[in-house]
C-alpha cells in the first residue's frame, strides 16, 4: 500500500508544476483570497469616534492574509513531499454536480417541488436505478411526504411555483 502511494507521489513529481494537484489547489485558494482581499478595500471606513478597537475591514483582511500565507506554506511543503494523485472523477460525479445546478435553475424559475423531483429522479437513474416503481417512489412519493410533513408539522410555506401553487390554491 505504501509502495503504491509513494509511486503515486513520485508520479506527481514527474508532472509539470502547473498540472500538479498541489499547485492547482493552492492557486485557486490564493486567487480567490486575493479577489476577496481586493474587495475589502471597498468596505466602508468607520469614523474614529464610532470605531470600536479596529476597523471592521481589518479583521477579514488579516484572515485573508493568513489564509494566503498558510497556503503558500502548504505549496512549499508539497514541493518536498508531493501530494498523491487522486483518481479521476467518474461520470456520475459530474452528473450529480450538474444536477445541483439544474436544481438551482428549476427552483428559481419554475418550482421548488419540481426541482426536488427532477434532481431525485435524475440522480437515482444515473446512479443505476432503472425500476420505474422505485424511481416514482424516490422522485414523487417521498418528496410529497417530506413536503406535507414540513408543511403541517412546521407550518412551513414553500416558495410559489407552478406545482406548489396548485397545492396552495
Amino acid at each position, binding site marked *: 500500500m505504501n509502495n503504491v502511494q509513494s509511486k503515486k507521489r513520485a508520479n506527481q513529481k514527474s508532472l509539470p508544476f502547473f498540472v500538479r494537484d498541489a499547485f492547482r489547489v493552492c492557486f485557486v485558494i490564493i486567487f480567490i483570497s486575493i479577489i476577496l482581499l481586493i474587495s475589502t478595500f471597498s468596505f466602508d471606513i468607520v469614523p474614529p469616534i464610532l470605531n470600536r478597537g479596529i476597523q471592521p475591514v481589518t479583521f477579514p483582511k488579516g484572515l485573508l492574509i493568513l489564509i494566503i500565507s498558510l497556503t503558500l506554506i502548504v505549496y512549499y511543503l508539497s514541493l518536498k513531499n508531493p501530494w498523491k494523485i487522486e483518481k479521476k472523477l467518474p461520470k456520475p460525479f459530474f452528473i450529480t454536480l450538474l444536477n445541483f445546478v439544474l436544481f438551482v435553475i428549476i427552483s428559481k424559475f419554475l418550482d421548488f417541488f419540481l426541482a426536488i423531483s427532477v434532481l431525485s429522479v435524475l440522480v437515482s437513474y444515473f446512479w443505476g436505478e432503472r425500476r420505474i416503481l422505485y424511481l416514482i417512489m*424516490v422522485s414523487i412519493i417521498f418528496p410529497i411526504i417530506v413536503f406535507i410533513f414540513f408543511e403541517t408539522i412546521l407550518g412551513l410555506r414553500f416558495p410559489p411555483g407552478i406545482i406548489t401553487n396548485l397545492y396552495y390554491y
Partner: protein
Amino acid sequence: MENLSLMLAPLFSSKLLIVLFFGTLFGLILGVLPGLGPTTGGALILPFTMTLDPLSAIVLLTTIYCAGTYGGAITAVLINTPGTPAAAATCLDGYPLAQKGEAGRALGMATVSSVVGGIFSVIVLVFFAPFLAKLAYEFGQPEYFALAIFGLTMLASIGDGSPIKNLIAGAFGILISTIGKDFMTSIDRFTYGINELSEGIGFIPVVVGLFAMSEMLIQSTLLNQIFKRVALKAVKLPTLKDYKSTWKTILRSSGIGSFIGVLPAEGGTVASLIGYSEAKRWSKKPDEFGKGSIEGIAGAEAANNAATGGAMVPTLALGIPGSATTAVILTGLIIHGVRPGPDLFREQPEFLYGIFGAMLIANIMFFILGFFGAKIFARITLVPNKLLWPMIFAVSVCGTYSLSQSMLDVWIMLLFGAIGFFMRRYGFSVVPVIIGLILGELVEGTLRQSIVIFDGNWLLFLTRPIALTFFILSLIALIFPLLKKKRK
C-alpha cells in the same frame, strides 16, 4: 441530592422519555449509515426541534449525539466501513474479529465499552462542567479571546490530515462568519449588494452542505464499491474472561476520551485513535491488535463515546464547542434562546441537569436498542445509495429552507456541498470550517473589545495570567502536531 433529583427528572417525564427513545433510534440509524452521522443528522433535525420546548430539543440533539457515536461501531464491525469517523479505529479489530465468526462478541464488547465510556463521561460532565463554569466567571473579553484562539489552534491536531490545511479550513470558517453586517458598526462586509447576505450566512446551510451534500458527491464517486458484509446472528454480552482482559482498557479509554472531549474542537475521532493506540501500548498482547483484538475494540469504543460527555463540558460551560456535533447542539441552544456559559449554571440548573440526566439515560437506552436491535440496524445499510441519497437530498433541502424560509440558504448549502467535496478530496478537513464559523463572532468580538479595553496596546494581553496560559497552550497546540509529523 437536589441535583440528582433534577438529573432523574427526565425519567419521570413521558414526553422526555419519548424524545429520548426517538432520539436514540434516529441516532442509531444515522450512526449506522456510512456518510451520515450525528453532525449531519443533528443539523437536519434542528428545524424540527422548533416544535419542541428548549429542554426537549436539546435532549433530542444530545441523544442523537450519544447514540449516533455508538451506531458507527455496528457498520465498522459488520462491513468494515465506519458509520461515523469516530468508529474508524473500531474497524481495525472489529471487522477481523467478525470475519472469524465472532461478530456478536465484537459488537457486544463495542456496546458494553461504549456504554461504560458514555456513562463515565456524563459523570465527568456533572462534576467538571460546573467547576469550569465557576472558573469562567474570572474570564473577561481578553480571556475569552485567548480561549477561542486556543480552540482554533487545537484544530491543527484534529484528524490525520495536515495541521496547516486544518488551520486554513478554520480561518475559512471564521472568514464566512464575517459575511454580512458587522455586528458592532453595521458596516456591510462581503455582501456585494445582496440584501439577504446582510444577515450573514447561516450555520445550518453550511453544515448540511459540508457534511451531507459533499458526502452525496463522494458517494457518486463510489458507486461501484462493493461492501463485504459479515453475517450477524445475535449480539453477545462479553464473557467474564473478556471483562477481565478489558476492564482496565475500558477505564483508561474512558478517561482519555473524556479528557480529549473536554479540549475545544477535539472530538470522538481523535479520542478513539488515542484510546486505541494506548490500549495497544498497554496491552499484554499487542501483536493481536489489527487481527481481531477484543481490547482494541474496547479501547476505541470506550474512548469515542466518552468524548461525547467531555465535549459537552466546554459547550455548556463556556459556549465553545468541543466537537462538530456539539457545534450543532450549541446552535440549537442559541436558536432556543439558551445562552451557554456560567450564568446558565446559576439560573437554569434544572435545564442543565435535565440534559445530564438525559445523556445518562440515552446511554442505557442505546445499550438496550443496540443489544437487541443491532441485527435490524445492520440491515439499514442494505438500502441502496441510489435510493437513499436522493431521499436525503429532499430532506436536506427542505430542512435548510425551513429555518429562514430562504432559497438563498438552499443554494448556499449546495455551494458548500461542492466546496466540501473538493476540500475533502484534497485533504482539508471540513470540521475546522464549522468550528471556525461558530467561533468567528466570538473571536472577532472579544478581540475588538479587548483592544478597546487595552487602549490599542496588544502587549497588555500578556499581563492577564489566564489569557497568557491559553496563548501558551495555543502555541503548544500549534507546535505539537508539526513535531509529531516531523518525527513520523
